[in-house]
């Protein structure tokens, strides 16, 4: 093993697991390749913006051992425009703080679209990293009679080019061998055979490289790569320039500014980026000359025929509305039997606890805390699974892209673009991935606005709340014959509420924020295909599992804490007093009227105990605040308790109402418990107006710690996070008030 040289870190001196970075254009089968190589089943989205998270997997290469493969978001170019692409650039250049520089790059290139795909490859060659090119979609290319001379291309580019068909697992062995060869190779990487630039540009690059030597993550001096130098020179105000400004390298910054001025003079009017692009395409054409044969004519595809209907302004919109209606109505009807089964199971558990456990705080904890709480949330699992199923199918078959295109028209009305469609739509399932998907939005202002209104989209956590209250308080009256019910309509209204309010809010926010420059809206439409059942089901499983785990941990903890706050303190004086009254009642009466009297006593006892508990005291404090919404202190407290996760409001109400009615009758399902809940004066706690005000509050509020934390991470600002929380809470409060008083004025539920 040779000694490491200061200027060229050799693979043999590596003492960490070799890391390969996988990159390429979106929709080239990158994720399929990643899965095939690492054996990990991951999310396969054929729509840009879905694969946003960094994904890492391991594979074993002969003679090298364990290797880490990192999947980068799909990118068209390293002249980073969106935060997504910026991440790719950072990882490739080793600027990511927690990731040392990659040891090799695996670039996936679409054989049916070589000209565009090689653009990125030309940039990758300039990074100086060892590179292997995987030529994918070879089956599609063959079907379109496109012939690619992979060996000739490899000779021209100076890197291995391996044809593969990831979906059918062809070419993977040669690919693994090529990667192993690359990593085993002790010699320094060959000089890249990249584009040739005119003198003004190359001289500028060399000048920057000369001053750009800096220590890398291991402290060894490394040169500024040609690619970095070029990007700094050409991308004015770009990602790398901004990064440089935040580091203290004044000599380099000065030099960059100087060289740019020189370049402008020498190019005499032509923009540097135009020179670069022209040089790249000259290189691409030279590389492909004689090595690719295409039929020449543009061939229509079956997707085009389908698109003629689905992207038609009239028919396309009808189809989309129909799809949305099916999903919503299905959410209600398809899951009903499953929900009943879960409820039945939970009741059984409650009964078992009564028989097995002695009376006292433990039993109360198990029944009113754990079972009532967590169970009330698990019951809605079928609905959430169905929602994720529908979204996954639509994504996988390729329809989502068309929907985004149609949505562009509407979204541009509030100033956003179709690119905001996936983040906003994903937020209907869960705000966390929705906000993260906003990374693909180039325009900074659009991105911020999208992130700020994403939580208004009714996420899957709100669904249990809507379903519970609608089932309990909205009459099941059919509208339009038996096609739609009042309940379904209310659900639709709740979902639309956030959406409708998001429009003026987005518009207003956009006006308020400074304009950063309009980015073009270009959206790629992948070919239609049958959704793969394995991928779809896997995605549903992963997402529902995440939901359950949340129910298991955050909500469980919150529920138990809530139970404790509602149970303690438990003064013996009160218990003794009521026991005495109970005895007196039993002695003095023996008629049927006794049962009612006992009931009333039990209710009063629970209520009084609750009133003086920790939670009760807190609730009484805020009661005047929530009275205008038609709430009493219990609902107010439940709302407070649901700050970490909205679903907790259900378990909180479950705990509060279960404890507040008959403590001896466990397993009363939540719907009934809600209907039976009474205020101190005996009137029902929940009427239709109250139910509506609760639903509206939760439709609009920002009660989700995970979402808020994600928001902070994606915006990098606590200020915006506080603003989001503030405006949504205010909106929720106002909306709930309007809903309550409006419904009462209209005489609903009277």
């Amino acid at each position, binding site marked *: 093993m040779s000694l490491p040289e200061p200027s060229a870190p050799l693979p043999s001196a590596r003492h960490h697991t070799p890391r390969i970075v996988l990159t390429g254009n979106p929709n080239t089968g990158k994720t399929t390749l990643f899965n095939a190589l690492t054996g990990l089943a991951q999310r396969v989205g054929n729509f840009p913006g879905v694969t946003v998270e960094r994904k890492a997997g391991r594979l074993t290469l002969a003679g090298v051992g364990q290797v880490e493969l990192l999947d980068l978001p799909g990118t068209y170019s390293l002249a980073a425009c969106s935060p997504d692409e910026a991440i790719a650039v950072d990882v490739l250049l080793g600027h990511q703080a927690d990731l040392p520089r990659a040891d090799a790059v695996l670039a996936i290139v679409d054989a049916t679209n070589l000209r565009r795909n090689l653009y990125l490859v030309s940039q990758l060659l300039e990074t100086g990293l060892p590179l292997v090119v995987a030529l994918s979609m070879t089956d599609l290319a063959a079907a379109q009679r496109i012939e690619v001379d992979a060996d000739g291309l490899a000779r021209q580019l100076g890197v291995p080019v391996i044809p593969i068909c990831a979906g059918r697992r062809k070419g993977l062995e040669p690919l693994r061998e090529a990667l192993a060869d690359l990593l085993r190779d002790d010699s320094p990487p060959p000089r890249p055979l990249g584009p040739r630039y005119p003198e003004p540009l190359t001289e500028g690059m060399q000048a920057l490289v000369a001053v750009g030597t800096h220590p890398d993550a291991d402290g060894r001096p490394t040169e500024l790569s040609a690619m970095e130098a070029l990007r700094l020179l050409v991308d004015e105000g770009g990602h790398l320039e901004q990064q440089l400004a935040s580091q203290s390298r004044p000599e380099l910054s000065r030099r960059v500014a100087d060289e740019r001025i020189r370049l402008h003079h020498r190019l005499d009017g032509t923009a540097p980026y135009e020179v670069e692009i022209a040089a790249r395409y000259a290189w691409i054409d030279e590389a492909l000359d004689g090595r690719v044969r295409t039929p020449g004519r543009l061939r229509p595809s079956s997707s085009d025929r389908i698109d003629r209907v689905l992207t038609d302004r009239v028919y396309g919109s009808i189809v989309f509305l129909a799809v949305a209606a099916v999903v919503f109505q299905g959410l209600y009807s398809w899951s009903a039997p499953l929900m009943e089964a879960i409820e039945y199971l939970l009741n059984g558990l409650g009964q078992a606890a009564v028989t097995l456990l002695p009376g006292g705080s433990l039993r109360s904890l198990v029944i009113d805390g754990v079972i009532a709480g967590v169970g009330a949330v698990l019951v809605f699992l079928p609905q959430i699974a169905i929602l994720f199923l529908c979204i996954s199918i639509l994504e996988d078959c390729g329809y989502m892209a068309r929907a985004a295109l149609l949505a562009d028209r509407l979204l541009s009305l509030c100033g956003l673009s*179709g690119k905001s469609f996936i983040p906003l739509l994903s937020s209907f399932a869960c705000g966390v991935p929705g906000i993260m998907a906003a990374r693909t939005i180039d325009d900074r202002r659009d991105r911020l606005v999208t992130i700020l209104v994403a939580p208004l989209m009714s996420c899957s956590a709100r669904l249990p709340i809507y379903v519970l209250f609608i089932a309990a308080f909205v009459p099941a009256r059919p509208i339009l014959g038996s096609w739609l019910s009042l309940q379904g309509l209310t659900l639709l209204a709740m979902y639309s509420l956030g959406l409708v309010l998001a429009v003026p809010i987005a518009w207003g926010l956009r006006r308020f924020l400074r304009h950063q420059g309009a980015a073009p809206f*270009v959206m790629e439409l992948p070919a239609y295909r049958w959704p793969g059942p394995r991928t779809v089901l896997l995605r549903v499983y992963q997402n529902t599992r995440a939901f359950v785990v949340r129910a298991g941990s955050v909500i469980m903890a919150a529920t138990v804490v809530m139970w404790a706050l509602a149970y303690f303190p438990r003064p013996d004086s009160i218990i003794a007093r009521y026991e005495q009254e109970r005895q007196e009642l039993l002695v003095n009466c023996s008629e049927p009227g006794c049962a009612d009297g006992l009931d009333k006593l039990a209710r009063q006892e629970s209520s009084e105990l609750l009133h003086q508990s920790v939670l009760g005291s807190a609730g009484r404090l805020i009661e005047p605040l929530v009275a205008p919404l038609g709430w009493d202190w219990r609902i107010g407290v439940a709302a407070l308790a649901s700050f970490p996760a909205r679903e907790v409001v259900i378990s909180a109400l479950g705990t509060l109402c279960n404890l507040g009615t008959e403590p001896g009758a466990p397993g009363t399902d939540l719907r009934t418990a809600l209907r039976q809940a009474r205020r101190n004066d005996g009137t029902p706690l929940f009427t239709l107006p109250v139910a509506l005000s609760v639903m509206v509050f939760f439709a609009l509020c920002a009660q989700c710690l995970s979402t808020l934390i994600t928001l902070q991470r994606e915006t990098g600002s606590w200020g915006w996070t506080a603003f989001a929380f503030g405006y949504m809470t205010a909106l929720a409060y106002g909306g709930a008030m309007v809903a309550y008083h409006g419904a009462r004025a209209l005489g609903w539920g009277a």
Partner: protein
Amino acid sequence: MGRRHRGQGRPVQAAAESLSAWFPGDEGVVVEAGGAPAFAARLREMGFLPGEPVRLLRAGCPLIVQIGDSRLGLRRRDAALIQVRRASAVSDPSKRQSQAAA
């Protein structure tokens, strides 16, 4: 700018025009992707290269074009900045006239 020929069906040099002026089914090649630098660069990266075959699939807003083998959706006002040239100006003169009349 070329001159229009009539009849014969030989491929001719048509005038460069804006993509938004095309009708569905029109095809040709890209001449130039114009507009602001960031925009032009992005278009070029997505495949709007000089000489690349292009076909319009859907007019209106948004536009859908087939460029190479990808299908891209664009806003109409952005498409107006892309200069294209029809491949065969006289492929179907009757169709062109009826479209023009519509």
